[in-house]
Every structure is written in structure tokens, then in C-alpha cells.
């Protein structure tokens, strides 16, 4: 009988258990996970396609090709035009807002689950870790697929504009042309897209999860979605 024994301190869960619980959760709610992940994929695909398209344009412009120069009629000087900067900034905003929104929705509909887990003895930190793992995995896979789709889109557009020359001058790796500016290259753009998608997904999910985890369980469980 545990009569009048002082109340002990709750233990931390081994990492492997957290990992198992988060993967199980992703697996069972597969359909819903795919929708959330698709939100990330779309945002990153848009950003990476605009960005890669820009890299391709610059690379071919520097190669001195006639058609390339024609396509860049609006360009005042060599380098990125204001329109391109605007496009990239816009796509970045769409990407941030889209991912934050889809993660926020995914967490909000699970407030009740968070409250229930706390009733069963979950520490606030466990709840946050669970969402961190789930969203990190979703963020990485979603962003990787998005970056590849975006690159593919930019390549197809480039083929239409520059034909097979595209592959000859393809800006795969970072480069530093004579004018001293820096070209990221497509690989770096893909990498940055993946990292950005993952960071946005993790922040977008663990911040609301942290807020939900701090609520008393009674309040978290009251939320109806």
C-alpha cells in the first residue's frame, strides 16, 4: 500500500520511447500527416523553384548567351533584378506562412490528446519533444520532396527558355564570377530549402505544442476542434 508515502518525481522517458511513440503517431494518422507534410512540400517547392530559376537565369546570362540576354530584358544591369528579389521574398513569405499555418492546425487539433497524455503522467517536456520529433521528420521529408519538385520545375522552365544549353551552363555548384558576386548554386539552394523547411516546421509545431503543454490538462482537454 502506497499510503502516505511522499510523492516521487516523474522520470524522463528514454529517447527511444519518444521516438517510437512519435513514429507510431505519424504512421496511424498517415493521411493527416501527408496533408501537413504536403503544406511544407508546397511552400518549399515554390521557394526553391523561384530561387533555382533565378540561379539558372544568372548563370546563363553570365555565359553570354544571346537568348539569355533577351530573356533578361527587364534587367537593368547584370545581377538579380528587383522583380526577382521581390519574387523570392514573396515566395519566402508564402512558404513561412503556409508551413506555420499547417503546423499550427496540426497541433491545435491535438490539444485534447496533449491534455490526455498529461493526465497519464506525461511531462511538459515530453509533449514538446514528441512534437519536435514528429515535425522534424515531417519537415525534413516534406522539404526534401518540395526542393526536388521545385528544382525540377525550374529546370523545365529553363529548358523552355534556353534549350539544352541549360545543362551545359547548369549552376550546380557554388561559384564566384568575375564581378565578385556570389552564386549559391542549385545544390546549396536545395540544401537551404530543406533546412528552412525543417526549421519552420519544427518551430511552427513546437511553439504551439509548448504552449499547449503548459496549460493545465483540464483546459487542454476542453478545446474542441
Amino acid at each position, binding site marked *: 500500500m*502506497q499510503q502516505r508515502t511522499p510523492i516521487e518525481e516523474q*522520470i524522463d522517458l528514454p529517447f527511444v520511447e519518444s521516438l517510437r511513440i512519435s513514429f507510431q503517431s505519424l504512421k496511424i494518422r498517415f493521411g493527416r500527416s501527408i496533408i501537413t507534410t504536403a503544406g511544407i512540400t508546397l511552400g518549399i517547392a515554390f521557394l526553391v523553384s523561384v530561387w533555382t530559376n533565378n540561379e539558372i537565369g544568372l548563370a546563363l546570362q553570365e555565359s553570354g548567351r544571346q537568348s539569355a540576354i533577351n530573356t533578361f530584358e527587364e534587367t537593368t544591369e547584370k545581377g538579380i533584378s528587383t522583380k526577382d528579389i521581390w519574387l523570392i521574398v514573396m515566395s519566402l513569405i508564402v512558404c513561412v506562412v503556409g508551413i506555420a499555418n499547417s503546423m499550427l492546425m496540426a497541433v491545435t487539433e491535438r490539444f485534447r490528446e496533449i491534455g490526455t497524455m498529461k493526465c497519464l503522467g506525461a511531462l511538459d517536456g515530453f509533449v514538446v519533444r514528441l512534437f519536435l520529433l514528429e515535425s522534424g521528420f515531417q519537415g525534413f521529408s516534406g522539404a526534401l520532396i518540395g526542393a526536388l519538385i521545385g528544382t525540377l520545375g525550374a529546370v523545365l522552365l529553363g529548358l523552355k527558355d534556353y534549350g539544352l544549353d541549360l545543362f551545359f551552363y547548369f549552376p550546380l555548384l557554388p561559384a564566384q564570377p568575375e564581378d565578385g558576386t556570389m552564386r549559391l548554386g542549385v545544390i546549396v539552394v536545395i540544401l537551404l530549402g530543406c533546412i528552412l523547411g525543417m526549421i519552420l516546421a519544427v518551430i511552427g509545431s513546437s511553439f504551439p505544442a509548448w504552449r499547449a503543454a503548459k496549460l493545465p*490538462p483540464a483546459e487542454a482537454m476542453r478545446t474542441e476542434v
Partner: protein
Amino acid sequence: MADIVVKTEDVVKEYRMGSNILRALDGINIEIERGEYISLMGPSGSGKSTLFNMIGALDRPTEGQVYIDGQNMSQLSQRQIAAFRCHRVGYIFQSYNLLHVRSAHGNVTLPMIFAGIPEKQRNEKAEQLLDLVGLGDRMYHLPDELSGGQRQRVAIARALANDPSIVLADEPTANLDTITGREIIDLIKRLNTDQGVTVISATHDLKMLDVSDRIVDIRDGLVERVRNRDEIDIEVGEVGGEGH
């Protein structure tokens, strides 16, 4: 000397909604003995769930103290509160609150995972508990594949996972038909008599009357009266007599 498991001292709970303050509990004083089956009765909105949340450390009172096993709940750390919910109390809710991503078995093992019980041991315990509540043949079904009564049985098995000394049930039969509700009440009563678990149940289901040791009538956030077993018997008799 009576062994008091739960004691509340002038518990007040206020909810703030904009500029309005709603006083859901207006100074509750109750003492519950170990092994009792207590029903908190009262109309909808009288404060039963709010009191349930205070006793179960699911929310903090605005004023007053709650003591469980002599421990003042307001003095516990976050980790102690989590351990308290994990080991000392089993919760049963009106809407079951199962995790729908985990099977019946997975729901029952979760509190044991939080308690750090080794895998083999917790799997066996989950099977044993699901057998006990009559779900031995549906262990690996997801909650969505179970009926209301079956879900509530899973919730009961889950509540028992870490051998709590108190089971808190908030209207456990409210979403069930009469016969299923009766079965759930009998199951909870059986835990009370066979395993000596203290049961505290909020309800307005009159079927709960004849299994309760005491009934605490709650009205407008106050304890209106406390009735004992023998007083209840008389009333149940009267109710039964009126029908003839």
C-alpha cells in the same frame, strides 16, 4: 481513526471570461475515506467537473487547498504532479479520451511507459487488464473500431495501469445506453470492492445511487448535503415504491 485520502479545504475556483468572473466552486469542504465509493451528484453546470479537476490535479484552485494522502497538492513540483497523475490516480472521462492513434493495448501501456515499466512487463499487465474489463479479444483494435461501452472499458483498464489508489470518473456513463451504463457501473464498483480502490465519480445517473457509499450533492458550486449509504437505501426504496 479514519484514513482520509482526499480532503479539500475551502476550495474556490473562478473562471474569468472577459470582464465576468464565474465562481464555479464556492468553498468546497469534503473528506473522503480510503476505499469509499463517492458520487458527486448535481445538475449540469453545478461544478462537478470543476471539482473533479481540482481533486485530480488537472487544474489549480483559485483559493483553498486540496490534500491527497496528506500531501498539499499546491506544494508539489511539476515533476511530482506528473508522477502523481501517473501513479496515484486513474482518470475516466465521459468522452473516454482515448488516444485514437493507439490501439486499446497501446492506450493501456502508455501510462506504464511514462512510469518507466519495462516493455515485457507492461505488455503483460495491459493484456491482463484488458482481460479483466472483458476486452481480451479486442486488444489490438483502434478506439475508432470499438463501441462506446468498449471504449469506456479500455479507459477503465488504462486508469488501472499503474495501480492507482484513487479512481476519478467524470460522468462515465453519460454517453452510454442504460444497459451498457449499468455494466460500466458494475465494473467500477467491482474494482472498488475487490481491489479497495477509492472511487470518486461525478454523475447525474441515478443508477450510481445504489453502489455509492456516500453521495455528495453539489449545487451552484457548494456542497448542498452529504448522504450516507443507509439514507440512500431508504430513498431508493421510496423511488422504487412509487412505481407500483
